């Protein structure tokens, strides 16, 4: 048998790059342990434990953000024998997921849907899902990706049906499981084909297949997109979304609509990054593509997916009366907008998606926070019960108005900037392309869709402002915390319209741009960074790839 592996980087040093995830694992166990010792009435306190765990993990993620700064997406710095990448792209999404989980926990602590329930499992499952999302963003191996996807899905199924006595929650959970099982099965089939073709589960293998077996690669990708599309709630795989969003507790709805979706986007972006950045093998690639012509191109698939997703989302949203269902369709539509970037498939487009995801994060969490706060007092998710909310709490309604305008994508809100960046990336790709109308038409359809979405978002504003308050809002008022929370969501939306440069820079660094500002470097940081660089210098860019180190055990 082989001798002990001569690691290029010691395993412990490698582990320092996944400390956020390890912290979450510790937090999961601590939450479960706390739950054992707390009576049911006090088990909500587990939420604070979970929040503390998230905080520590986030601190470490910020720290690692500086360590991994300057590594390109799709770059070679991979840990654990090529299982996960340590780059700023991963850290970017890890930060977003941790923040998202934090907001979800805060909302859960304030939600009337979850009071008087035993909530140790709730927070433990939420942390598990977050940990899985972190791995999804950083995995660079199909096996790891699939495992992370499943680990994200399993807690989500349970969380969606967390209110067990509620029939709707049970329906939501069951539907989610069925759709999830089918789509992950289809995805797994695609993975097995990919493995058979490439003999490797590495993301880099995809590029190799694309050059040799192009049509097979396209079919495989369609299978894979089924799995990702389920997480992103893209059009033919979106059927679960409205029912699950409606039946799940509102904080979980927010979590699913933001974190889960972001994880899907992160994974598919990393998966496709090497494919889209192929330059050296372009001649072979074009020859292979020529055999099937333009219509079977991967970009065409994304074109169809994007158009279908946004159109379906927007037009179905028009008829909704339940705010959670409406936001479900709205989130489907937003997935469609973001999918346009995959048609453009260049670096700018991916940056635009990341930029848009941050704004989407703020908008959606803001709206779901409002839904939670209102439900706590009224016990209703009907939009008609929001009538005259303006006369009860003008500040909050103004905040909600800002969020809604941002969801439409109109100035003066950050939503406009996000959409602008997305569509500009597509148009610029069109200008470079031989068939520009392929891209222009997509932008035109997206713009038309935004106009359609105007109708139902403004409808909500109309309900809140132009009617007398109904009887459900008779003694309604928001408390100070809730007002502050809503301000916290609305303020950045305005601020980012005024100056989006900091966020842009953040996203650029997430895409792997080199560090610009002078940053305090703590000794450990230099040590890690030096280990990384030294390993790359001596062993070439594939330093962490087992195949190049010669100690493969077989």
């Amino acid at each position: 048998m082989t001798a002990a592996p001569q690691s290029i980087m010691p395993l412990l040093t490698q582990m320092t790059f996944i400390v956020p995830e390890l912290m979450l694992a510790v937090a999961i166990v601590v939450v479960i342990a706390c739950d054992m010792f707390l009576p049911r009435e006090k088990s909500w306190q587990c939420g604070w434990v979970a929040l503390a765990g998230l905080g520590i993990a986030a601190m470490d993620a910020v720290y690692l953000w500086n360590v991994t700064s300057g590594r390109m997406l799709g770059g070679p710095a991979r840990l654990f024998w090529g299982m996960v990448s340590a780059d700023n792209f991963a850290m970017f999404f890890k930060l977003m997921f941790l923040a998202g989980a934090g907001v979800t926990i805060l909302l859960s602590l304030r939600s009337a849907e979850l009071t008087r329930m035993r909530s140790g499992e709730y927070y433990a499952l939420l942390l598990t899902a977050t940990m899985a999302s972190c791995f999804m963003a950083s995995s660079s191996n199909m096996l790891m990706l699939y495992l992370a996807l499943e680990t994200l899905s399993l807690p989500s199924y349970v969380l969606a049906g967390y209110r067990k006595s509620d029939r709707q929650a049970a329906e939501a959970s069951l539907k989610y499981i069925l759709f999830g099982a089918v789509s992950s099965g289809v995805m797994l089939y695609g993975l097995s084909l990919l493995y058979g073709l490439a003999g490797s589960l590495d993301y880099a293998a995809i590029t190799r297949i694309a050059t040799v077996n192009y049509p097979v690669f396209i079919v495989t990708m369609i299978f894979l997109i089924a799995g990702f599309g389920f997480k992103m709630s893209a059009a033919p795989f979106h059927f679960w979304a409205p029912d699950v969003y409606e039946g799940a507790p509102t904080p979980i709805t927010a979590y699913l609509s933001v974190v889960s979706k972001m994880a899907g986007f992160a994974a598919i972006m990393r998966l496709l990054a090497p494919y889209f950045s192929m330059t050296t093998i372009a001649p072979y690639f074009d020859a292979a593509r020529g055999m099937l012509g333009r219509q079977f191109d991967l970009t065409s698939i994304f074109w169809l997916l994007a158009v279908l997703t946004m159109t379906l989302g927007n037009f179905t949203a028009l008829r909704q009366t339940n705010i959670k269902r409406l936001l479900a369709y709205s989130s489907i539509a937003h997935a469609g907008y973001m999918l346009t970037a995959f048609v453009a498939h260049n670096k700018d487009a991916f940056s635009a998606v990341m930029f848009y995801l941050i704004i989407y994060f703020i908008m959606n969490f803001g709206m779901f926070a409002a839904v939670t706060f209102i439900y706590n007092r009224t016990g209703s998710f009907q939009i008609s019960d929001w009538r005259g909310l303006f006369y009860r709490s003008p500040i909050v309604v103004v905040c909600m108005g800002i969020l809604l305008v941002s969801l439409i994508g109109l100035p003066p809100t950050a939503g406009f900037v996000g959409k602008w960046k997305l569509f500009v990336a597509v148009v610029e790709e069109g200008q470079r392309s031989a068939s520009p109308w392929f891209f222009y038409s997509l932008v035109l359809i997206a713009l038309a869709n935004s106009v359609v979405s105007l109708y139902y978002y403004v409808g909500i504003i109309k309900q809140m402002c132009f009617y007398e308050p109904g009887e459900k809002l008779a003694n309604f008022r928001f408390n100070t915390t809730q007002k502050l929370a809503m301000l916290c969501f609305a303020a950045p939306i305005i601020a980012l319209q005024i100056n989006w440069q900091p966020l842009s820079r953040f996203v650029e660094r997430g895409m792997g741009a080199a560090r610009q500002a002078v940053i305090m470097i703590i000794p450990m940081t230099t040590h890690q960074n030096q280990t990384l660089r030294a390993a790359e210098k001596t062993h070439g860019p594939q330093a962490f790839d087992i195949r190049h180190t010669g100690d493969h055990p077989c």
Partner: protein
Amino acid sequence: MSPQTVIFYCLAVIIILSAVIATFARNIVNAAYGLFFTLLALGGVYVLLRADFLAVTQIVIYVGGILVLLLFGILLTNRRLEDLIISGQRSSLLGVVMGCVIFAVLLAIIFYARWPQSENAQLEGTTAPLGYLLLQNFLLPFEFSSITLLAALLGASYLVRPSERD
């Protein structure tokens, strides 16, 4: 024809026939037993591929674990013996068309693709290499799967616990 080939085709026939039974049986228990033969014969295919550890794992997990759970679930839920669980008629036309299309596409893939062939697959005993792989190359997924299982366990135990009444 080598004995391996003969055995392979026997197994293939068993797999296909039992899979057809599992798909089209209207009595859910018969479908489960169809699945049993599919899974068992698949274990045989693994043996032919010289993956003996995988073959036994297949038996332990699918036959001993999943299938028994499946049957146990059926037996627990189907309280009345008089009427067996019968699945409803499927809307067959769409299914047939979709199935044929997907089958055609997959067939095309199988014949079109240039499948790489591994040359030194003559492993004598797969247990030790598997162990090394699990604790080296696949260390992270291996450890991470424990979190997956923990989540599944936690979720399942939450869902089956009797509802709390206020």
